[in-house]
């Protein structure tokens, strides 16, 4: 399937041209900065939860870490929106690069693991349980691997693309 007409159309929209071409710092630079801040909080808190499950800071009741879950989701949605804006800016650059789909897949699996881990450890009836079960620990290791992969894939997008725009 040839998606070039779609890419050409998207790149011709006013929003896309503003994101890429505007000299304003609130266009491309600000969107990138927001995307990095969202990453720091969303991925960072997930890493902290994984570390806690793997035995770091044993005095913290794992179930209490659920208080940070809303922040992960706020940061995730900030990044979903800023990510879509970056995608509208350079659709060809991302959509013609397999690494972009790998990044999305790793984020998807990472979020799935996050909610699966959450269902097992954020339950109040878990009581004073301080150590996570081996199953949850394995999920936490997988989660760590997914986030390391997603962040790395995201960074490599700047180096692995074949076409920058539909015309180029």
């Amino acid at each position, binding site marked *: 399937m040839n998606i070039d007409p779609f890419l050409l159309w998207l790149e011709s929209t006013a929003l896309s041209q503003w994101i890429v071409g505007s000299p304003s*710092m609130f266009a491309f*630079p600000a969107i*990138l*900065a927001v995307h*990095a*801040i969202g*990453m*720091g*909080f969303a*991925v*960072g*808190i*997930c*890493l*902290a939860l994984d*570390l*806690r499950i793997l035995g*770091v*800071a*044993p*005095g*913290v*009741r794992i179930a*209490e*870490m659920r*208080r*940070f879950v809303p*922040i992960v989701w706020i940061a995730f949605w900030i990044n979903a929106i800023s990510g879509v804006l970056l995608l509208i800016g350079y659709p060809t650059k991302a959509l013609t690069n397999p690494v972009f789909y790998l990044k999305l897949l790793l984020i998807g699996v990472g979020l799935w693991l996050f909610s699966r881990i959450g269902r097992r450890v954020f339950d109040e009836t878990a009581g004073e349980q301080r150590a996570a079960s081996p199953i949850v620990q394995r999920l936490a290791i997988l989660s760590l691997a997914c*986030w*390391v992969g997603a*962040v*790395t894939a*995201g*960074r*490599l997008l*700047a*180096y692995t693309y074949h076409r920058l725009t539909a015309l180029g």
Partner: protein
Amino acid sequence: MLHDLQVWLVTNIIAHSPVAHMMRTAWGWPIAESIHFLGLCLLIGCIGTFDLRLLGIAKRVPIAAMHRLIPWGILGFVINASSGLMFLLTEPDQYIYNPSFHFKFLFIAIAGLNAGTFYLSSYRQIFGANPSLDAPLRAKLIAAISLSAWVLVIICGRMLTFYRPAPCIGQQTSLLLTCAPAPEKRTSH
């Protein structure tokens, strides 16, 4: 004087950089950048989470218990200071004359001094004989400054690309050079 120090640093780093060759291989720079972003996540995930606890999220978690995450946040900082140094030692003029880098450095210094203030002032109060579940106002202020400073560090880091220093035209009057002095000016001193 600061101007001379900047020129001296750039000149000497270019002449003697131990890592520039490795960083200029196909994967050197991209791998260092990926590590830099992962360190960022670790720093925000551990130090930011502790700051949020001081600010009142997850109040039932003892502050001292939460504090055990801090060494991992410091590990994130060390990872980023090291990978950041790799960039600086490869393209020194892109950072030493970059106003965004000057601000990034300033906010890192503020975050560092702020953390120092925490351990000198609120630390005893929070981890002493009667650890309160609600942090004192002073500690909350420090936590808010910490979060703000690290967010500003990220913003300045991301802005580096957009403030790449150009060669200087005319006299520099600012505190720090924000463009690369033309080579003939360097030798005219």
